[in-house]
């Protein structure tokens, strides 16, 4: 049993390759907070406070624990949300950018391409092209809702299907407003 694991500080072992689990748990708390509100600003000072460590220690430890620096992690989460909104809502690209926490449309577009390899409009266009496949979606969506935190994987699959089929994009940009009433806005605002 883990008698030595916790209560007795002397028993907490820190092998050179690993981080203290107690520290990791506190770093996870900061990551959870970013996940829950990725549209908010998360300066290192704020994250470090959540984790109860110094700012310098936080950035280094976070990267060691999760493989990416905290700021990069936040940007990735924001882009994931933006991708979901582009596909599943009728928000304009500008609205998506602001809803996911960006103050500049230019920065949004640049980071978006950096992370996904595509532009926001390209992703939306392909999502629209696959709209005819959405007849099957309710079951998918239902299971996605039951599946914890796997939205991206579901969307990823859909994207792969679309990519394989190579359906020509439908010219729907122009009649976006007329279709608005027909599609529910599945915005995940939190």
């Amino acid at each position, binding site marked *: *049993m883990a*008698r030595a694991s916790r209560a007795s500080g002397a028993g907490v072992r820190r*092998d050179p390759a*690993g981080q203290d689990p107690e520290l990791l*748990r506190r770093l*996870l708390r900061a*990551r*959870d907070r970013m996940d829950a509100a990725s549209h908010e600003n998360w300066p290192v000072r704020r994250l470090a406070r959540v984790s109860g460590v110094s700012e310098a220690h936080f950035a280094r430890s976070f990267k060691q*624990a999760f493989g990416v620096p905290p700021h990069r992690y936040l940007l990735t989460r924001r882009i994931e949300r933006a991708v979901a909104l582009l596909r599943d809502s009728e928000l304009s690209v500008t609205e998506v950018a602001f809803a996911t926490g960006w103050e500049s449309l230019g920065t949004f577009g640049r980071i978006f391409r950096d992370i996904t390899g595509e532009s926001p409009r390209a992703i939306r266009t392909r999502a629209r092209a696959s709209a005819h496949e959405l007849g099957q979606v309710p079951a998918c969506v239902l299971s996605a809702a039951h599946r*914890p935190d796997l939205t991206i994987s579901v969307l990823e699959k859909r994207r792969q299907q679309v990519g394989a089929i190579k359906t020509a994009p439908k010219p729907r940009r122009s009649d976006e407003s007329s279709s608005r009433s027909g599609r529910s806005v599945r915005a995940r605002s939190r």
Partner: protein
Amino acid sequence: MSQAVEVVGLYVRDQDEALAFYVDKVGFRVHTDVRNGDYRWLTVQHPDQPSFQLGLFAPGPPVHDAATAQTLRAIVAKGAMPPLVLNVDDCRAAYDWMRARGVEFTQEPMDRYGTVDAGFRDPSGNGWKMIQARR
């Protein structure tokens, strides 16, 4: 039914802490709590699900060497273990009840197409989704 999955286990950093969490804050009850030397077999269960037990196991001897135990504790603490799902009748009521007891929620209740779900973690870092199915 005699053929079924009976126990699935979690790794926890401290069994006393995990026991208090799952019983006092989540509402499970103790099924088995026995010791053999340093080893402690501890399971809890949902009060409405007598055929299933959730094991709360601490990495360490005699099952794991020190380095392995440390690795397991780190994986749990990073939130890297697979997610767990708790079905509830009323997600918001359960959220209020658990939150009042100090459960660390990672996501407030959210409506998704008729279902409501929230997220929480146990003290060790195991992540749960709490889901209220569509009625």
